[in-house]
């Protein structure tokens, strides 16, 4: 607790993971326990796969709706890279609970150079441990899928959070019942208990090591050369359309022409698709 007795919980994840609902439920639990509560998040771009966060603060009196870095009691991360992004918010002696399922953004898969790696941080767990002693990583999605609904992942994680909070089980189950759609109350409560029990079952130290080592293939190719047999080309434009790298263009005589040979990634589509065998990639 901070000097003025405010407790801070930061919940983070990626758009669509249910961060906000989870923090709403925590807010209800705190309020029903008679605490003052403030919570803060930013909607907008977040929905489209961007970063989502929710600050929850409770205590006798809460002023700022946001948490200062280095003062959060708990960081509940729905995704490993997001845990890393927000880890500086955790106070010394605080706890990080993290879902081990990665969400690799499409932006991480765009480097078309030979053997370029996926742009996703490696060694997250060590980095987290280097900062905060108490790191609890587990696969929440697996538990959710066991219950039969991958969307319950957020409730599983909330269950894990409950294992480090002061509130009674009944407070949580009641808040869940009050906050989710009536049809899904039972499943959500089950998911909550799965996450909670998994934590209590001391999953905390046996952490699966990072699997995602780069397998670098060492094919070394010279810069490709695209040759177009001008008199065979009848101007159907197929190669221009199929080239994923836009290396080709129709020229003013309506014949295909190479404009960006350096961008070629040797996928061979133009050569394969040309009905007149006019294109060669070497």
């Amino acid at each position: 607790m901070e000097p003025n007795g405010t407790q801070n919980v930061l919940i983070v994840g990626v758009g669509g993971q249910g961060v906000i609902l989870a923090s709403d439920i925590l807010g209800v639990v705190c309020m029903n326990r008679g605490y003052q509560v403030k919570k803060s998040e930013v909607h907008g771009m977040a929905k489209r796969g961007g970063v989502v966060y929710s600050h929850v603060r409770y205590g006798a009196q809460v002023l700022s709706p946001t948490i200062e870095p280095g003062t959060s009691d708990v960081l509940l991360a729905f995704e490993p890279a997001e845990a890393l992004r927000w880890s500086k918010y955790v106070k010394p002696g605080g706890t990080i609970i993290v879902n081990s399922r990665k969400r690799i953004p499409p932006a991480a898969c765009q480097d078309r150079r030979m053997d370029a790696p996926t742009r996703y941080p490696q060694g997250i767990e060590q980095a987290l441990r280097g900062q905060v002693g108490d790191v609890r990583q587990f696969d929440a999605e697996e538990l959710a899928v066991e219950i039969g609904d991958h969307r319950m992942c957020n409730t599983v994680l909330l269950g894990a959070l409950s294992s480090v909070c002061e509130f009674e089980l009944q407070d949580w189950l009641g808040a869940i019942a009050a906050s989710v759609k009536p049809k899904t109350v039972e499943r959500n409560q089950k998911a909550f208990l799965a996450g909670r029990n998994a934590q209590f079952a001391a999953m905390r130290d046996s952490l699966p090591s990072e699997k995602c080592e780069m397998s670098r293939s060492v094919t070394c190719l010279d810069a490709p050369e695209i040759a177009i047999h001008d008199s065979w080309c009848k101007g159907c434009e197929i190669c221009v359309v199929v080239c994923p790298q836009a290396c080709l263009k129709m020229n003013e005589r309506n014949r295909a022409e190479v404009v960006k040979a350096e961008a070629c990634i040797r996928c061979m589509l133009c050569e394969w698709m040309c009905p007149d065998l006019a294109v060669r990639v070497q």
Partner: protein
Amino acid sequence: MATAISSPAQVLLSGNEAIARGALENGIRVATGYPGTPSTEILESLARYDSEHYVSWSPNEKVALDVGVGAAVAGSRALVTMKHVGLNVAADTLMSVAYTGVRAALVIVVADDPGVHSSQNEQDTRMYARFAELPLLEPSDSQEAKDFFQLACEISERFDTAVLLRSTTRLSHSKGMVTLGTIQPSRAKEYEKNLNKFVLVPSNARVRHEKVVERTGLLREFAETTELNRWEKGSSEIGVITSGVCYQYVKEILPDASVFKIGLMNPLPIHRLRNFAASVDRLLVVEELEPVIEEQLKANGIQAEGKEYFTRLGEFSPERVRAGFQKAGVLPMPKAPETAGAAAAVKENLFRPPALCPGCPHTVPYLVLKKLNALVAGDIGCYTLAVYEPLAAIDTTLAMGCSIGMAVGLQKGGDGTRPVVATIGDSTFFHSGIPPLIDALYNNVKITVVILDNQTTAMTGGQEHAGTGKNLRGETARTVDIATLCKALGAGFVEVVDPYDVSAVFRTLKSAIQYDGVSVVITNRPCVVSPATIRTTPYAVTAKECNACQMCMNLGCPAIIWTEEMHEGQHKVTIDPVACMGCAVCGLLCQTNAIIPLAADPARRTV
């Protein structure tokens, strides 16, 4: 949902929900606005209450304000909501309603976005209040958001003026506990004609301007006594003048300082501030964005420090306010942070820009426009995300509705080597795309206008508009058909195309850019996440067929990611079956037939 409560009197409400509640407790009869983050949820929340007030989306902020002014002139209390940049659109009406005044309360809620979380700029609405000489109230939490609404109504009627209520992203989207009052029925006063007041011909306008100056004088006196402004006595060493959410940060970080909290931002209580300044050894101003308070203090000869420690840029937070006090020497400097070298290196790869959803109907038109080497004047909406790699198909994005007019300029002022195309969403088209289309048609400019009709206002969370067939309360409404409208304006080339049909989009756009005049192409697939989630069988990649050509990766679909299996130095791909919504577009692009519906692959049916 999260408003479930233990005691009936207190609930957890966001700033926006609290404003809506304030409107109800003060008998608002007409409420209008145009969606815009972070203001959108005010009207949405109001529409969920079952009462007889009129609540509606207007096509743009100016229309919304016109409706609000009309209601207030008729004698009913009115609320108008918008985001900060929306006030630019409504500014013409705003500057004049400042002259006319009202007959019943008119509260204009404007939500600013310091830090540009989801906007095109971070302009400060307090400057508008000074420009238009309108009172502006600035609450600091949800409870105040509701309480200030009542005071806004009282000021509006007592001083015969529209009132601005300023929120910020942090206030609008933070939840706090609110004590509820009772909902008041709305009533309309009897109509009274008053030509001198409500018809701004020059002779009347001159007289009304005098009234504005007179009113500002009265408001200045009021500012000196109102409880909206609060002097909180503390240590005499440091005095802080602050407002809005920053007040909370200041109280948390300097609990012992003397604080002057400003709730009525315009006009300022200069006499009280002068006394406050005299009561402390050092005076600091903590205000987000522009130095509105600080400059007025200085203009009145009151010494204060502010922007040298607290930046004009971006959003404040407890840590930034603390750093400001440290810089000012009020708090000790922190120890130099330890260098977390390894962690920093790992963090370099932490980037997660927002992207178009899996199956978004905006994807293919941009893929094709890039192929056609078009010069694309973009607009504001989800489709703005096509500016990022790999689509990277947009040349300009400025403000709402700018695309078509800019395309005219790009065509007339350009070198003519690339086809010029404007892309605009349906909601944005209704907002401010129709007059520029008239301009293009009137002057017969050779441009293509692509109207991306996803049948909703998606960027702001899926609001209805004039083209969706529903109103804000979800009831059936009249629909304006975009194709019919364009034809009625005289467009000779109007084609509707299915944006999932890659070759149809290609063919249609190709003939559109060759058309000699204004060509209009309208896409017709709904947004896949709002108002309803659309999903069919997900697709899957047969790894042995994939030759890593990266064609599907050109879509930027978030469901398609790399595997670590390589083919000639390139990553093969895989599809996340949970994220994929089954639009089939990647399958159409795949030349090796590696992408097929998940259900068609017996080996993978169990996922």
